[in-house]
């Protein structure tokens, strides 16, 4: 299968969904993304990314959990698909490979 391609922001959103201990939906994903990145991000950006990840098949969603403050509207809960898990694994593996390939002592030389 083709290699997974994920943008940086997509990867973060996907990781947040994966890391979420409770059921992940728009609001808590948005808050978590902001907390983790320390950046101010609009909700629409998170929504767009979530929908796009679902279209790409990394996420799947189901509706449920309506509350009063939502005006009776249901939440869309997102969960990782097998494809999503594999994509994250692929990326992690690639990173690991690259990290291991860095010659020892090189970072000290640069002064990182």
């Amino acid at each position: 299968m083709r290699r997974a391609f994920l943008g940086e922001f997509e990867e973060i959103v996907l990781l947040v969904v994966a890391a979420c201990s409770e059921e992940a939906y728009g609001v808590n994903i948005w808050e978590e993304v902001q907390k983790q990145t320390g950046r101010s991000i609009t909700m629409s950006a998170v929504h767009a990314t979530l929908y796009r990840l679902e279209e790409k098949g990394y996420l799947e969603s189901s509706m449920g959990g309506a509350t009063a403050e939502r005006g009776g509207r249901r939440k869309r809960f997102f969960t990782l698909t097998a494809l999503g898990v594999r994509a994250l694994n692929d990326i992690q593996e690639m990173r690991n490979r690259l990290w291991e390939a860095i010659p020892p002592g090189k970072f000290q030389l640069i002064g990182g």
Partner: protein
Amino acid sequence: MKPRPVEPPRWADQLLETFLSPHLLEDAQGDLHEVFYKRVSEVGLAKARREYGWAVLTYLNPYFFKTFRHSAGKPATSHYTTYPQPSLFHSAMVRNYLKIAWRNIANNKSFSAINILGLALGMACSLLILLWIQNEFRVDAYNANGPQLYNVMERQFFDGKVEAGSGTPGLLPDELKKEFPEIAYAAGISWEQERTFSVGDKLNKEKGRWAGADWFKMYSIPLLAGTAETALNAPTNIAISQKLAQNYFGSPQAAMGKSIRIGNKDDYQVSAVFDIPPTSSVTYDYLLTWKDMLNHNEWLKDWGTSATQTRIQLVVDRNGVMDDPARVEAKIKSLMKKHNPDMAKRGSDIQLFLQPYQEAYLYSNFKNGYQDGGRIEYVRLFGIVAVFILLIACINFMNLATARSVKRAREVGVRKVVGAGRGWLIGQFIGEAMVLTSIALLIALGTVWLLLPTFNSLTDKHITYQFTDATFWAILVGMTLLTGLIAGSYPALFLSSLNPIRVLKGTIRFSSGARFFRQGLVVFQFALSMLLIIGTIIVYRQINFIQTKNLGFDREGMLYVSSEGELETKYDTFKEELLQMPGIQAVTKMDGTPTNGFGSTSNVQWPGKNPKASIQFQFSKVGYDFTKTLNVKVTGRDFSKDFGADSTNYLINETAARRIGYKDPIGKPLTLWGKTGTIVGVLADYHQSSMHTAIEPFIAKLGEGQIIIVRVQPGQTKQALTSLETLARQMNPKFPFRYRFADEAFQTLYRSETLVGTLANYFAFLAIFISCLGLFGLAAFMAEQRTKEIGVRKVLGASVASIIALLSQDFIKLVLVAILISSPVAWYAMRQWLQEYAYKIDLDWWVFALAGLLAIGIALLTISFQSIKAALMNPVTSLRSE
């Protein structure tokens, strides 16, 4: 202020619901709401609402739109149940439409140029006319209390006839205000008079009027100095225009209270400086007071003389409700009877009636005593012309677009196959028409901008683009939408109806219905053009007829000089000396001019007159040598110094003699205003006014006159002018020397006709030009279509002439049909127009024939270029491509 409910801003939710894909709406909106309530408790309602609104705005992103086609390959488990419907106005499609439209314009430069040029010319024309019409409706609409302003007019019943006139007695305004509490203000206004002003050593002639004291209270004429209350109250007050204040005193403020000497006799004090709005129909550079007029003109105090106009303003109660004008009219109706007690005895009657002031300009004509059109007819006429011309331009577009539809048929077929609905195609083609129309509008705006100065001087208006005026924009947008819609409608409906299977198989055949419709359009177009051509020829001929008709007196080589100052007091010396000088043939004087009568009266008696009959006579005071100067034939004799008692004798014209009923009028008695004299001569009838009215009975008596009339020796105009000027300057240094040719004065009677004639000329030319543009395009297309056929014909031995004939005959047939249709319509319309003239031309058949020939000739000329080109083409080149 009531507290805001604790909920997100409604507009934001509505926005969200409008554009967000329905399958995304529920959870996204839910999430937003959840965050909103959380934020309310954290940062307060106001800030949370702001944040919510902002967050919603960030969803304005094509990705979330209803119309966005989400990428294929949605997972099978997807819960996206409602699929978004692609729409006509999706950005990708719009881009494609624009691209195709642009390619079509760019690839067919000549057709596009014809289309755009035709539309632009048509729109420029219509725009000009619409601006003119808009301006016409603005005339006299500047008054704050416009709806309360009325003109008081007279309806005269005499001699079995009813006639309406704007003239009323000079004492009427004050009487009306005194007698009727419904009338808040009343002011008279006089005729225009040119008088000589002198301030220090500045000397000039100015045109102005006398007006009642309420004048500035009634009309919203801005006063730069002085007040409406005091402007015209003292007898020697004078209100002057800004221009005059500038010329004589330097500024409006400096002019106040200063003295102006008029006619080198009377002094007046400037009491106000006004700035008359350009849309005022009554014009004047100065206003003198009503009291001054009555003091100087004793005869205006007579209730039987109607020489001035009366304007009133009705009272408005506290609630702003005005008395019903009809009720006021009924009350004032028989006022004249009270002041003219002997009127009923003579079997005549004068009733007063009201005309709304704002209507008076456009509805100025009265027929048999009742309102009957006026300038509004020209406004309507030109409105129709504007629509015609725009229609002709639209038809060009429709014709060319449908004729060329073969080329677009494939595109339509492909679009239909990949799923375009009919509505989309209609939208696409109308949209294309709109694009072309918009380009045309820009060109039209530029053209009109260039033409406006010329147009303004032609029509005596001050029309400019009013970019701050909503009506102006409404006209532009309305015109563009309408033109685009009409022009695009038929091509859109026709093209979108094509069957994709047949189109793509390449067997496209146009139904005879479509061809018939197209031919119908050409016929319609040419019929409209023919109408305009015939109209132009007839208007032109009538104007020519008026201007060259023998008036009964010789208006060539006749000069008018106004009699004032020394010229008035030493008239006899002036005349004697002038006659000694080169170039002068005869001199006389008269009240009014031969073509602009002085006034009318019914107070004429003679023995044997039917006491019930009341006949209106035109009258004037004239000097000696009247007939000699005017070159009018006279039976009997003119007034002469050889007969001492001539001051009570009369000259009458033939019509008057007929009305009075004398077999041999000379030597018979006649009484004018109670003074009995004898008739010494009968003048041959001459026209005293425009050709709209028949010659009326006329009486002249010997007396002083305001205008000196000078007859020039034939061919010696130059010498005569020098003589006149030298003598006038020498005798009358206090007055500037001015003269007017009788001819010019006569022309001004027909200003509106001449204007209509000139404009009609231009518009007819444009109409035929635009029609020909269309024809040119069609001919080019037809020739291209029949290239092969022509090639084959030539190979088989057809001559060039026969091919030109072949290509031309189709079009000529259409033009012939157009002529047949338009001729009766034009005949009827022009007969109606000519009804307005008492003296008019006949509607000769040859006018129609000429217009027809002209149309055929122009059409032939237009298509000849294409047909000759096609006929001369080498058949080898046209047949080889197969």
